[in-house]
């Protein structure tokens, strides 16, 4: 059995090396760079210009910008990298993800591979008597009578409309992966405490972090009396954001915490928790501030309400989103140096420069990944602490 497995492995390995050796050296270099440098420049020449035969490689500043913005957005398929073969054919490596849409005739599902990596609405998928097209990562439903998407001057589809998109997109995959990972990791940690006091294995990595969040974030900001109630939420948010940020630095090209929807959702959780657990004095300080002249109290109430219900969650969501997106854009821009400065520095010079710069900026991004998780958790704890604080009466 063991021998068979080994044989199989060597056969597969040989075939793989043969296959790869056939490709040009250039492709190998791009592949190696894509995996060594972080963040998915991996699908470097997977462009919207799919129909461009033999081209698709990024060389101009405009294409680089377009590519980076394309990466920042969510996508319907999981593309690791793609290239143009010697025969001029586009090859994609990756796997499709299910598209789930709620359209005029109810729920419809199909695999995103049916779009054949097309993103400008030229490929029409027919399913259950409905026609779908993908334009700029959004799924559109075509009017029943038409068979082709028509665009107006500003490149908006005129005979198609957006549908409610419940697809398992790349970001959803990231969230599910991290959710599963955290569940398994922390369940095993919790199990270990039933048997003994000191965790072993991976639990030893997690325990100090858990204690850090509890003793340095939750307890000082919320207060000794109430902190236990909220520690669970703060731990969840901390590890969720931190691991997702780190996932964004892997070469798979996730950008989950750089999606406004994700950060907005997390901010709304915090908003609901501190609003719902606010005590009488918290609301009194918002709506009818004691200790100031009566005429000023309504003015203060407006400001305080806006602060509590809008500005606090807005600052939370924008900070996380902007930091992570900006980080990704910086890393990708530095990797793009090897394409944009190729003419002036030569291939080797531009590659070395971009490798060095992106390596160090990635190290900073690892720090930022932790710092943003810490700040989000810290500010959540601070806001909750404000809501449950008990003021001593004078």
């Amino acid at each position: 059995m063991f021998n068979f497995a080994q044989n199989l492995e060597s056969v597969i390995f040989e075939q793989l090396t043969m296959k790869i050796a056939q490709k040009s050296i250039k492709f190998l270099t791009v592949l190696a760079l894509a995996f060594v440098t972080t963040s998915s420049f991996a699908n470097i020449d997977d462009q919207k210009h799919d129909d461009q035969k033999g081209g698709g490689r990024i060389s101009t500043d405009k294409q680089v910008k377009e590519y980076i913005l394309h990466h920042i957005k969510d996508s319907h398929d999981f593309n690791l990298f793609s290239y143009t073969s010697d025969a001029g054919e586009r090859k994609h490596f990756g796997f499709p993800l299910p598209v789930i849409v709620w359209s005029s005739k109810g729920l419809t599902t199909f695999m995103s591979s049916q779009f054949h990596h097309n993103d400008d609405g030229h490929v029409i998928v027919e399913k259950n008597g409905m026609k779908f097209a993908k334009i700029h990562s959004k799924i559109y439903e075509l009017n029943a009578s038409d068979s082709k998407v028509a665009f107006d001057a500003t490149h908006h589809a005129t005979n198609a409309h957006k549908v409610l998109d419940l697809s398992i997109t790349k970001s959803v995959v990231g969230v599910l992966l991290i959710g599963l990972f955290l569940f398994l990791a922390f369940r095993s940690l919790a199990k270990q405490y039933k048997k003994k006091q000191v965790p072993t294995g991976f639990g030893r990595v997690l325990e100090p972090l858990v204690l850090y969040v509890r003793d340095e974030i939750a307890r000082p900001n919320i207060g000794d009396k109430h902190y236990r109630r909220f520690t669970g939420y703060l731990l969840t948010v901390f590890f969720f954001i931190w691991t997702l940020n780190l996932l964004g630095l892997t070469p798979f090209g996730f950008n989950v915490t750089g999606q406004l929807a994700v950060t907005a959702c997390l901010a709304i959780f915090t908003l609901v928790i501190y609003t719902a657990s606010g005590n009488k004095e918290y609301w009194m300080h918002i709506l009818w501030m004691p200790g100031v002249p009566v005429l000023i109290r309504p003015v203060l109430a407006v400001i305080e309400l806006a602060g509590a219900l809008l500005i606090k969650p807005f600052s939370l969501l924008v900070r996380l989103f902007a930091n992570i997106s900006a980080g990704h854009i910086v890393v990708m821009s530095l990797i793009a140096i090897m394409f944009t400065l190729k003419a002036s520095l030569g291939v080797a010079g531009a590659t070395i420069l971009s490798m060095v710069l992106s390596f160090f900026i990635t190290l900073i991004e690892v720090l930022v990944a932790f710092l943003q998780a810490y700040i989000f958790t810290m500010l959540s704890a601070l806001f909750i602490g404000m809501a449950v604080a008990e003021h001593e009466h004078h």
Partner: protein
Amino acid sequence: MYNLIGAGLIVIGAGIGLGQIGGKAMEGIARQPEATNKIQTAMIIIAALLEGLAFGALFLGK
């Protein structure tokens, strides 16, 4: 054009502010090394609030 200049001005302001926060925190830590943790926490919170403002400006100015 003007929105870019405005965003730039706000980022300059935020930069000055961050410098002030960092500098004063350093001073405070040098004076009272035993209060390092408290000073650092407060510093990070204020810096995060300021950063939110700067990023907001960048997004509105884009």
